[in-house]
């Protein structure tokens, strides 16, 4: 077993063990904190597919995170008020249905955004993805039907068959299972034909085109799949907080998702997991010490970018291998 695999397993066990222990000790707060780590990690796994494997520096993934959240919030609100969505289509509080809808909506919105953004590259791509996310953000703020600026509260968590989702631990386990499934999917894609083409598109798009594979199509599909995973995370996040608001769509959120990946290690399978752990740890510990924790987070982040590249996994597991 390689060193990276060992580190990954330890991280997976740590993330599972901590809330189990906390629940045993009657400390539900830490279970919720671990759930937050898990859901943020899931969102970043989605971004890692585009950014880590494909080299697509999307500064607009908050759009997909927020869309997933709003799907959960809107479906739950309609179901609670017993209003159909449109015409005769009923709303639902069933998590599996909500997840599928959230992922589908995020993916469908990602296709046109990607189709425009991926015609460009470099700084243009960064700015355009940011601009589109901002467009959705402003739309959410100025559309009053679902809370506008104030957001939307869910009166209770949505339902999962056979599980009491209102309790912290079962809800954590649902999120943990989703994260593990996404990590398996990430690993499968990384080693697949599609993943090969995607990574080649990052390393050398001209080479990929010269063998007859159009980088644009590969990148577009990757962008959409990436958005779907992040959208799913958004739905889970809305249920975690029983709230969804424009802040989920804000560009700070997009920035934080990138930060998570870099803190953990870009393109590494468990990079987002390690990054989310470190991020939430900082947020919690620094936030406990000082109200100004973002100031210090900024300093730490600046230090990492300038002096310690490779992230936490670079430190723990050494250089990545490609076979």
């Amino acid at each position: 077993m390689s060193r990276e695999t060992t580190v990954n397993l330890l991280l997976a066990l740590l993330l599972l063990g901590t809330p189990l222990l906390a629940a045993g000790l009657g400390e539900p707060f830490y279970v919720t904190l671990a759930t937050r780590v898990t859901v943020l990690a899931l969102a970043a796994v989605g971004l890692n597919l585009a950014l880590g494997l494909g080299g697509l520096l999307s500064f607009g993934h908050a759009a997909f995170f927020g869309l997933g959240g709003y799907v959960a919030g809107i479906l739950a609100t309609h179901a609670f008020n017993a209003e159909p969505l449109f015409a005769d289509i009923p709303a639902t509080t069933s998590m599996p249905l909500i997840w599928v809808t959230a992922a589908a909506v995020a993916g469908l919105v990602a296709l046109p955004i990607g189709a425009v953004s991926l015609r460009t590259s470099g700084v243009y791509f960064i700015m355009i993805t940011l601009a589109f996310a901002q467009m959705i953000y402003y739309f959410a703020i100025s559309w009053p039907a679902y809370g506008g600026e104030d957001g939307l509260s869910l009166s209770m968590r949505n339902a999962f068959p056979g599980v009491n989702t209102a309790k912290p631990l079962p809800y954590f386990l649902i999120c943990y299972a989703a994260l593990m499934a996404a990590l398996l999917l990430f690993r499968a894609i990384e080693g697949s034909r599609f993943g090969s083409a995607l990574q080649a598109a990052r390393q050398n798009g001209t080479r990929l085109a010269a063998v007859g594979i159009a980088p644009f199509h590969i990148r577009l599909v990757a962008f959409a799949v990436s958005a779907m995973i992040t959208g799913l995370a958004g739905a889970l996040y809305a249920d975690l907080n029983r709230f969804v608001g424009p802040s989920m769509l804000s560009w700070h959120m997009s920035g934080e998702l990138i930060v998570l990946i870099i803190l953990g290690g870009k393109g590494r399978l468990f990079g987002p997991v390690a990054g989310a752990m470190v991020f939430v740890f900082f947020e919690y510990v620094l936030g406990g010490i000082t109200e100004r924790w973002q100031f210090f987070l900024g300093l730490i982040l600046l230090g990492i970018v300038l002096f310690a590249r490779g992230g936490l996994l670079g430190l723990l597991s050494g250089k990545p291998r490609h076979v």
Partner: protein
Amino acid sequence: MSEPVLEIRDLRKSFGALKATDGVSLDLRPGQIHALIGPNGAGKSTLIHQIAGSLKADSGTIRFLGEDIGNLDMAARARLGLARSFQISSLAQEFSALRNVMLAVQARQGSSFRFFRQVTRDKDLTEPAMAMLERVDLAARAHVPAAELSHGERRQLEIAIALALAPNAFLLDEPMAGMGPEGSKRLTTFLDGLRHEAPMLLVEHDMDAVFALADRISVLVYGRIIASGTVDEIRSDPEVRRAYLGEAA
């Protein structure tokens, strides 16, 4: 005479006031190695870029296997069987030599939208790719990342990738560059054997290689073809001697 595989008519491309390609016409016929020579800055690479699709011509036609490919992008032209090697090696640097070739195999099989099966365990990819590396004597270095290969090995890898596409024509942009006399000689012999797999448009500065390989030579100066003919015709053409060979001597 058989139909040309590649047929270029009156191709033009300008960058501002500079006419990089100024009414070029040329044919590449089956079984042929057609060498394109000319001094630095004559527009040879610009021409290759337009044929491969990484630059768009201002006017003129490019027909490949009878089809007008002028509006196709690079990937679409490659799918029709136009395989290209780059003047400066262009590889997926982090991938091993084998995975670079596997990418070409996968492209030929038209199967890049498979998301689950792991390529390293996929014999449909690894075996043909390994066979290509063996053909260019690079099998022993199959698992070395492209970035760590020597200059000569990277050129060999470029050829292996082109071969893996089972192309209908090769576009080779200075394959001998930086190879050293021994390497050039071996590559010359190797390319000589390839002419029966697919015809070749060869841009090359190494005159020994050009005279040894070419069935036909076109001389490009300032974006125009000033002479085109057999090796002997070109050798004895006074204008060519003045414009180009004389300068080299």
